[in-house]
């Protein structure tokens, strides 16, 4: 649970810092004549982006707990590490390229370049599906060589963590699909820029999660 605690301490630290900024030297009981616009600064950020960051905190909490459970469970005697299929390295590379294409789409969106956004999004879609197919292929390989889900906790955790990560990617693909649909309907780039940016944040986050999970699998 240490891992989760570290994550939460960081998060709580951020919340306390933020609240301190809100409350220090403020005397709420003193009525103010002017209505200083409280939205300055705060509202420079679109609500959807705030919501996404909070959602990412929730997902991080989820993965931190899975990883905590992993760390606790692996110290029991029956843990036998899995082989690390080479394909995982390829999948990792695919996911990195996906993230790069996503960023490319963002840059194109900022430039107002509709064709660039389109190319970027197509690449992201293809690469993401390729990654998912690659992960399924890894499952197949492990299964074929006798590493079934229930035979060892290490196997069970591998299947579980990759599945949870995959499901999150599938969820992201729904948002990607909606964004892509907007672009293909010919909505101007300025209006889809936010959606593209949100997708990009999510993809980078999932890449980060995957790198942590992969490092965890490699090191144990």
């Amino acid at each position, binding site marked *: *649970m240490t891992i*989760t*605690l570290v994550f*939460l301490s960081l*998060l*709580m630290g951020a*919340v*306390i810092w933020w*609240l301190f900024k*809100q*409350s220090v030297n*403020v005397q*709420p*009981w003193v*009525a*103010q*004549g002017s*209505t*200083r*616009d*409280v*939205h300055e600064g*705060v*509202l*420079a*950020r*679109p*609500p*959807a982006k*705030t*919501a996404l960051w*909070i*959602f990412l*905190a*929730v997902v991080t*909490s*989820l993965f931190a*707990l*899975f990883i905590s*459970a992993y760390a*606790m*469970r692996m110290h*029991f*005697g*029956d*843990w036998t590490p899995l082989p690390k299929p080479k394909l995982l390295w390829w999948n990792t590379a695919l996911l990195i390229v996906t993230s790069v294409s996503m960023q490319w789409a963002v840059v194109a969106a900022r430039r107002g370049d509709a064709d660039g956004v389109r190319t970027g999004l197509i690449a992201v879609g293809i690469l993401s599906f390729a990654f998912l197919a690659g992960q399924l292929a890894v499952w197949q390989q492990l299964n074929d060589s006798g590493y079934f*889900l*229930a035979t060892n*906790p290490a196997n*069970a955790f591998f299947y*579980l963590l990759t599945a*949870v990560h995959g499901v999150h990617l599938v969820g992201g693909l729904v948002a990607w699909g909606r964004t892509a649909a907007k672009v293909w309907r010919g909505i101007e780039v*300025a*209006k889809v*820029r*936010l959606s593209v940016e949100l997708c990009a944040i999510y993809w980078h986050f999932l890449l980060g999660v995957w790198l942590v999970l992969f490092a965890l699998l490699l090191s144990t």
Partner: protein
Amino acid sequence: MATYVSHDESDFAPPAEVAEVELYHPKTWIGKYVWCQDAKVIAVQYAITAIGIGLVALVLSWLMRLQLGFPNRFAFIDPSNYLQFVSMHGMIMVIYLLTALFLGGFGNYLIPLMVGARDMVFPYVNMLSYWVYLFAVVLLAASFFVPGGPTGAGWTLYPPQAILDGTPGAHWGIILMLVSLAFFIIGFTMGGLNYVVTVLQARTRGMTMMRLPLTVWGIFMATILALLAFPALFVSAIMMILDLTLGTSFFMPALVSKGQQLSYTGGSPLLFQHLFWFFGHPEVYIVALPAFGIVSDLISTHARKNIFGYRMMVWAILVIGGLSFVVWAHHMYVSGMNPYFGFFFATTTLIIAVPTAIKVYNWVLTLWRGNIHLTVPMLFAIGFIFTFVNGGLTGLFLGNVVVDVPLSDTMFVVAHFHMVMAIAPIMVVFGAIYHWYPKITGRMLNDTLGKIHFWISFVGSYAIYYPMHYLGFMGVPRRYYAITGTNFIPESAHSLNVAITIAALIVGATQIVFLYNLVSSYFKGKPSGGNPWDATTLEWQTPDTPPKHGNFGKELPVVYRWAYDYSVPGVKSDFIPQNVPPGEVAAEAWVKA
């Protein structure tokens, strides 16, 4: 993105004024009351569903008490049923009633109105949140009708027993329970994102964070806790489902069941306990923090006095929230943990008493020399202070390892947690309903019925739980169907059980008075007007009561002051609403509206 404004991508400030046509207007009855995206309707949907399933749990508690008070008198309560009643009662009350009602019910109704927003920022997601919650409730209720019935594993669902033959509902019931919890968490996350982002970004002009009513602070912080803690329950639910259906061994050790060696090896039941309580302890505060917030507003309003120590109240909410994540293992003192861990968790647990005590002192100091109106909401608020202090003090007993070990799994624990996280928050729920019902319906609840409801519920709760502490001291264990062949439990314990059961039946039945009041006042209650309690917060300043969609008419209110300007010296009226500009408060000019 909010449906109420159609602005371009670069402007995210809610406009102060909207044209009538821009508001989301449902066109059909179904659009208005069923597939509704208005937070106020969603709040009522949440509340009705939560109270409905809560009544089922109330009946379950009656059945439990009937068995304990009059053992073996009732043929329809066998040991399996009894365990199922206990488990379902606990889970429903904690998650499906209290969490859903405080966050989904009060959160949805009060957050947009109190921060001066037209609606939640993502109304569609908000609507989905309710329907996913309803689906979770239906799944849970379905477990009463499947082969084997609902799970009887206790609300903590500890493996291995939860999924072994011999525990009631070990095949169907437990799966439905776990899947239902998973859906609850998904639904809650949708709603929770809304509550947090609405507080952060949809506040009206002038509403700084430090001018928010404490109700909003309580719900806001509880939502953050829930968003971070529920994943722990989600993780444990998923892993237990895999253990049960696909034969993995996350939690299941090698064991022999009914003479047969099972295929599980090496799993760790303790791992489940850690995950469960990592969720389970913050859950206490997910229920308590909204109650803290709401009760602060009730006390301040009905004592006509500003809340004592507003900033400390906000900080206490935050500190309690933070600490609640580092105390979980005090639920596991008897699990054989390292004594140094026990020492650590006992220390953190006792430290929580500090911010909590600050809050209690502040409530009492708010009452001190206030102009106390003993209205029904105020009675419930004061009742809350008593029951909460009571339960909190026994919490200090149980927080110490040496005291906890002999009292563990006795009726003392049952008495403690019912006082602190069942009766106390429910007192606030009732107080809040009596307080805000006029805003929701435009009519007052009947006062006499409310007082009858309060006094029987309050005194009755003490009649139920006070004696239980003694039972616990005697060593009467919790969760036992019947106690036979034990010399250390005297005959008098049995008469006490009879008395408790009778009190429980009476308190339960009194809730019918409350339900009757809710229904009859809706049709025949005294019209309340817009601000019957002379309160300062924005929800009481709406142009219409009940508020229409969009809450504030054409123009959003502008906030000039905090929420607690009661009995301001030199001002004629004893309250100044948050949206009254300082210029208007020139003492003589300001007359009571």
